[in-house]
């Protein structure tokens, strides 16, 4: 079984209408249920983190720009690590991710094991 990094992206700058408290509540529930369903299969390797919107990008020559999304259309909003038998299975699991419902996407990457 391999580990896969799921990276959640969505455009923070698009002025999505401020969700109502009920919508926020539902959004939270959807995330918890999705994470729970992965964990219930014992496939959650690391519950990851959510990233805050502000950030800096450091480039050669002491160039520091504000915010990773100045040049990237979509910023990384968070990540988790899951276990799956194959890339196909990891992608299948990702189809349930609530970020897809708010115009975001999930990037699935295989983590290279230390002992191949």
């Amino acid at each position, binding site marked *: 079984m391999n580990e896969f990094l799921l990276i959640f992206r969505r455009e923070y700058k698009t002025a999505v209408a401020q969700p109502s408290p009920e919508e926020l509540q539902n959004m939270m529930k959807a995330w918890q249920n999705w*994470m*729970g369903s992965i964990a*219930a299969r014992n496939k*959650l390797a690391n519950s990851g983190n959510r990233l805050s919107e502000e950030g800096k990008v450091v480039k050669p020559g002491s160039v520091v720009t504000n915010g990773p999304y100045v040049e990237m259309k979509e910023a990384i909003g968070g990540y988790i690590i899951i276990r799956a038998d194959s890339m196909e299975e990891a992608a299948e699991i990702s189809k349930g991710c609530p970020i897809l419902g708010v115009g975001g996407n999930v990037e699935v990457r295989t983590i290279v094991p230390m002992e191949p």
Partner: protein
Amino acid sequence: MQQKELLPHLFRTEYRKIIAVLVRHFGFEQLTLAEDIASDTFLIAAETWGLKGLPENPVAWLYTVAKNKARDQVKRNSVFKQKVRPAMITDERSLPETDIDLSDENIKDSQLQMMFAIADPVLSLESQTALILRILCGFGIDEIADAFLTNKETIHKRLGRAKEKLRLAKIKIRLPATPEINQGVDAVLTSLYLLFNEGYYSSCRNTVLRKDFCLEAMRLTLLLVENGQTNTAGAEALFALMCFHASRFDARTDENGEIIRYDEQNVALWNEELIAKGHYYLNKSSRGKELSRYHIEAAIAYWHTIKNDNSEKWENILQLYNQLLCVIYSPVTALNRTYAISKINGKQAAIQEAEQLGLTNNHLYHVLLGYLYTGSDQEKAVRHLKTALQLAKTERERILIRKDIINLEI
């Protein structure tokens, strides 16, 4: 006639106290000696009281005999040392302090410190539970063997090996220093949680014994909770969890010791006093930032004490199971989460979730699917229950599953 009831009772309450104090006094390497002294004390009591009647204060009598025996032991030891290794003894004062302190306070402290010593990671969790049952709770070898569904010989060996390991590892009887105390408390909590579960979920039919295990686990957890150095939020949350679970003790087994499932229990038998106690300690445990698995499990147990089967209750339970699974996976939690989904979104939705769990070798998985298919596809329900019957490990579980099958086939 009275002695017949009194001695087992005193053995249960006093044996462990005498051991704890002696072990603290002599050190862990003398655990066997402490057990010998305690056992011998009770033997003398049985003979003396049988011949001459009960003393005025039996507990004080036991303590005096134990103290004298301990003092004799020290003397004998020093004689031995003087004869065999005279060079070792240079001064009378190098003899160990012989005054054995059997005050309430010292008993509590000794038992608390013993818990930390036993919860040392050199011992497997299984050995820890057996040792706690034996020397901190005073259960008989045959009782421990019953609970573990094994024989006396196995328990004897397990205890022997555990004591030897503790002796070799030179485990000291004391509370860990402040920086390590939380880690130490966590190890003790794991051990006590296991002890409680041993009683709560054991397949052993002896309901009285199983309840005793749970009560003992609660008594020891309370020792932690009531001590200023060891009352971590996790300890309080675990105690709350135990209270909530124990509140259903009388409702969850019938007169033959068979299990009655949660949704079939007579809620009038749930113990309100324990629920209130659980509530108190769960609130207390929420004072800081710490969110242990015991907090989540206690919160789940709290929602289970709500008698009204409404959607708010199951919604909360589902979210807590989600959280718990993200912290620590267990097949039972995964199955319980699925049951909560059926309560909110119906059995069909739960079947879809269940099929993704990859637990087809687990009998409880098939019991759950049997329940979920009941009402929509009786044939499939029966098939799952029959698979469960084949996979079940104990007769007690098989009885319950057979009952389900009969109910479906009627």
